[in-house]
């Protein structure tokens, strides 16, 4: 009896020792040396894995930062400048302050502005509708309104407006860019948030000739060029019958929205305008 116990203890014990030695040697041989800073940086990142930095996820960004030892061109949109500054101080690097950004829907082809001409019954996704036809309103560039962007948003920062049939970006948008990729028509753009969240942009991406675009949508950019003439900062370019406001040059002077004959230029979060003398609605006094 005792003998059996002894044999088993010895044999098992020696087996275990051999295995331990082999495992130790293998572990030493194939050791992956990881910079401990990666873990520290990854912990500071928001952990949303949204891909807004352009990399596969938060850990990929942490690895990239530590590997390059610089923060040039790296940005965590959900974390913003705060997180980047924190990481910079941790690693002794310098973070360049970046302007906060937000997603902007550049289409106003609501059911009222671009009334539906046909009825669509297929799969209610923009991806399929885009491959099938121009859209219920007839605009080949405009919003289809089936909400692929809303589905793609991981931050609950978008919703479909039931009345207009257009997506709306809420203020908590972190500009991760998921909706930009989801939109088959590239309607959504990441733009600078602007001072006090004020933004001016052309809410149309239709490149058709003015008359054709206007036929489908009342608020289409018709490429008349009035805004280009009005802008003193060369911030507006006209290409393919479509005006585009460069948000880096725009000073938010509010000169261009009133001259647009189709109200295609939108201004957000500005105080209401004082009634102007040349507006047709009411002749202003003195």
């Amino acid at each position: 009896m005792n003998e059996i116990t002894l044999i088993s203890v010895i044999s098992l014990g020696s087996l275990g020792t051999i295995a331990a030695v082999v495992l130790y040697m293998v572990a030493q041989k194939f050791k992956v040396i990881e910079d401990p800073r990666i873990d520290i940086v990854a912990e500071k990142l928001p952990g949303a894995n949204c891909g807004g930095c352009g990399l596969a996820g938060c850990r990929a960004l942490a690895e990239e930062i530590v590997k390059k030892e610089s923060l040039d061109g790296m940005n965590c949109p959900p974390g913003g400048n705060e997180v980047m500054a924190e990481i910079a101080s941790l690693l002794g690097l310098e973070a360049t302050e970046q302007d906060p950004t937000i997603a902007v829907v550049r289409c106003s082809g609501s059911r009222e502005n671009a009334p539906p001409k046909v009825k669509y019954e297929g799969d209610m996704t923009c991806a399929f509708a885009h491959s099938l036809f121009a859209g219920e309103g007839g605009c080949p560039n405009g919003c289809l309104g089936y909400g692929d962007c809303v589905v793609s948003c991981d931050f609950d920062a978008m919703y479909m407006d039931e009345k207009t049939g257009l997506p709306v970006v809420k203020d908590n948008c972190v500009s991760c860019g998921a909706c930009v990729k989801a939109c088959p028509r590239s309607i959504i753009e990441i733009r600078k948030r602007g001072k006090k969240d004020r933004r001016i942009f052309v809410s149309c991406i239709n490149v058709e000739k003015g008359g054709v675009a206007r036929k489908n949508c009342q608020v289409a950019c018709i490429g008349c060029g009035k805004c280009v003439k009005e802008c003193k900062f060369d911030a507006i370019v006209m290409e393919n019958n479509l005006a585009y406001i460069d948000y880096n040059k725009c000073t938010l002077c509010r000169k261009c929205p009133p001259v647009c004959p189709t109200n295609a230029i939108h201004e957000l979060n500005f105080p209401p305008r004082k009634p102007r003398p040349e507006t047709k609605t009411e002749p202003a006094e003195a």
Partner: protein
Amino acid sequence: MKTFKLGGVHPPENKLSQSAAIEVLPLPETVTIPLSQHLGVPANPVVKKGDSVKAGQLIAKGEAFISANIHSSVSGTVQKIDDVVDTSGYRKKAIVIKVEGDVWEEGIDLSKDLIKNITLSPQEIVSRVNEKGIVGMGGATFPSHVKLMVPQGKTAEYLIINGVECEPYLTSDHRLMLEKAEEMLVGIQIQMRALNVEKAIIGIENNKPDAIEHLRKLLPQYTGISVEPLKVKYPQGGEKQLIKALVNREVPSGKLPIEVGCVVHNVGTSFAVYEAVQKNKPLVERVVTVTGKGLKEPSNFLVRIGTPITQLIEAAGGMPENTGKVVNGGPMMGKSLSDLNTPVTKGTSGILLFPQAETSRKPVHNCIRCGRCASICPMGLEPYLLAVLASHNKFEDCESEKIMDCIECGSCLYICPSGRPLLDQIRVGKNETGKMIRSRHK
């Protein structure tokens, strides 16, 4: 009776216009001729605004290998070359011609005499077919000259002629087989000579007994051609299904029919080849079925390419009030029109008017895992799985599940008891998977 083995459905046939003889539609006031009426690269216009053109004159040249020439279908003046709304609502380049009289280009034989004697060599036939802009008339509009050239190292054994017309409602091929049978048979012989094959089989579903009988009567004069009646089953008109049904061979996944020694052409294409080779006439008109349950006179028209679809509907008795949907093509694979002023193109086989009550899709419910879609898929795929994979952007998995083999016949969408948009999702998946595969070769 022969048919293909795997899957298939049998929707109500509704061949309302099968006894209506082909009528020649009067010339429209203007025609709109799109530059992309075929698969492949759009043609480049060779006329300018203000030019006067004759019917049959070359107006756009297909310069790429997979492309097709386009000829004017009328005589008149070129009004503009501009972007015009096509059937999908997108704007595509087209040539608009104002019709003035009906003068044809010289050298085109407009007489009805049958010319049986084939004088051209195989190479000459292929270049003539290319020159005259012949494309597959079944609806896929693949340039025909490409299909008449056998790639090196391959030999064609059978020429298979598709007279199946498995789509419900459509009767344009049926009427063509009845009224232009001899021309079509000469066309088949021309194609046989180009491909250097001895045997041609015309596959016809047995819901067209008059066409089968008529062709059989004429066959003794044409050696090498036989007619095979087929059991009615959709999608028998698919290339791969037809080859399986007629010669019991299976085209491997991702390969062309020539791999198993077959070349498939539509009866309409054979007729167009006859006209191009024997009469020197380019593809400028085609037979279009205009049909629908509410329509006064379901008809078959011989229409010049570029005629607005509204004119066809007018000629068939006008649009019924209860119309809910107008479809370009058959009810299974056709596409709804978003604009009725769009023109007839080389691929328009039918215009279908559905009453409001029949148009709506079933409400979408959850998949109940009944497996009907998988059991009827003629390509042996699993549509429920492909649809889910595609809608979750899992395109690598789509590829390994052979999404690229899908022929988009719509049988799964037709059979699904839960009304799920299976084909819609598969189409998106196929598109994206195709892009992914192509990007690997760059």
